[in-house]
């Protein structure tokens, strides 16, 4: 047990932070929702009703989709794009998918390589792209969920005060959907871009997200 905790401490700490953050988001969101109910002269709803509502759903999904888009694009674009001096980047001149020998696949796989890395054909293709496929699928799924929860919340606001509701198709072309989408995308792209360039010149001793403190600014693709 102690070994499990120690070996998985990074993911466990982030899991705990996620659970705490989403719990307190629900608390704050429930309070805001009922404040809005007061403004409309409508009755309060319970915490349980709020966290099973589209109002909470869209608030969660619009953030999740942008996070998974961030990772999807980061995983994909770092195959071919480089940033000189950044630990987030491959070394200059190593753009592309890499050779089988470098990627330890097929005949070049080791004894402890994952089974599908040793395989050939479709299975290896899938495994070679599994990170992108899963991240991308989660992004698409959560973006779709944002659209579904978003149109419900949008239409509930339309009905008070007595305005026309819209279809899902109309909603995904609406300013409301794209404002929610793009406000999240811009922050994700800024964060990744900032990290890529700031890590060229700044250091955090001990973090694999940073170069070693004494590494030169032009050193690319090295970890601390």
């Amino acid at each position, binding site marked *: 047990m102690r070994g499990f905790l120690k070996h998985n401490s990074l993911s466990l700490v982030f899991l705990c932070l996620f659970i705490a953050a989403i719990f307190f988001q629900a608390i704050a969101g429930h309070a805001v929702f009922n404040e809005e109910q007061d403004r409309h*002269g409508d*009755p309060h709803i319970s915490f349980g009703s709020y966290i099973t509502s589209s109002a909470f759903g869209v608030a969660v999904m619009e953030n999740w989709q942008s996070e998974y888009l961030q990772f999807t694009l980061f995983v994909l674009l770092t195959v071919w794009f480089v940033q000189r001096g950044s630990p987030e980047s491959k070394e200059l001149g190593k753009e592309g998918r890499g050779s089988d020998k470098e990627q330890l696949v097929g005949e070049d796989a080791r004894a402890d390589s994952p089974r599908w890395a040793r395989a050939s054909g479709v299975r290896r293709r899938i495994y070679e792209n599994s990170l992108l496929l899963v991240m991308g699928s989660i992004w698409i799924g959560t973006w779709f969920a944002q659209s*579904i*929860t978003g149109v419900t919340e949008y239409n509930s606001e339309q009905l008070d005060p*007595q305005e026309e509701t819209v279809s899902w198709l109309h909603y995904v072309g609406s300013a409301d959907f794209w404002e929610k989408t793009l406000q999240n995308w811009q922050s994700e792209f800024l964060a990744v871009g900032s990290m890529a360039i700031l890590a060229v010149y700044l250091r955090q001793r001990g973090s694999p997200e940073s170069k070693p403190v004494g590494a030169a600014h032009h050193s690319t693709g090295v970890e601390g």
Partner: protein
Amino acid sequence: MSSRATLATALAIACLAGVGCGADEERDAAAVTERFYEALDRNDGRAACRELSATTADAVEHQEKAPCHDAILRLDLPRGGVAAKSRVYLRSASVDLAGGGIAFLEEGPAGWRISAAGCTPSAPGRPYDCELEG
């Protein structure tokens, strides 16, 4: 993810969105609307006022300077009506009448109640014009 798990996840998301899992709520909203218009049709102001939200009932009394059960019968509202289509989004609903017109409802502790009735479209993108609203 297995196909069964994928379907379950999609249904859960749809339920969260209030889509496709609100058939009971749509029926409830339609029933309240039909009871309201049936009460007007038999000139039963008290029964009609029971289907109104508190805010809307107060608004009627304030507007007509009379108790709700009297005031409601003075308004130019359709008498009788069959619900043709209901839409429920979270705690708001709209019910189209088969003979034309639309009613708006809100869900409170006592269930669905009429918040606006006798509504007809105004200019595109603008709220409906309603004979009765809270």
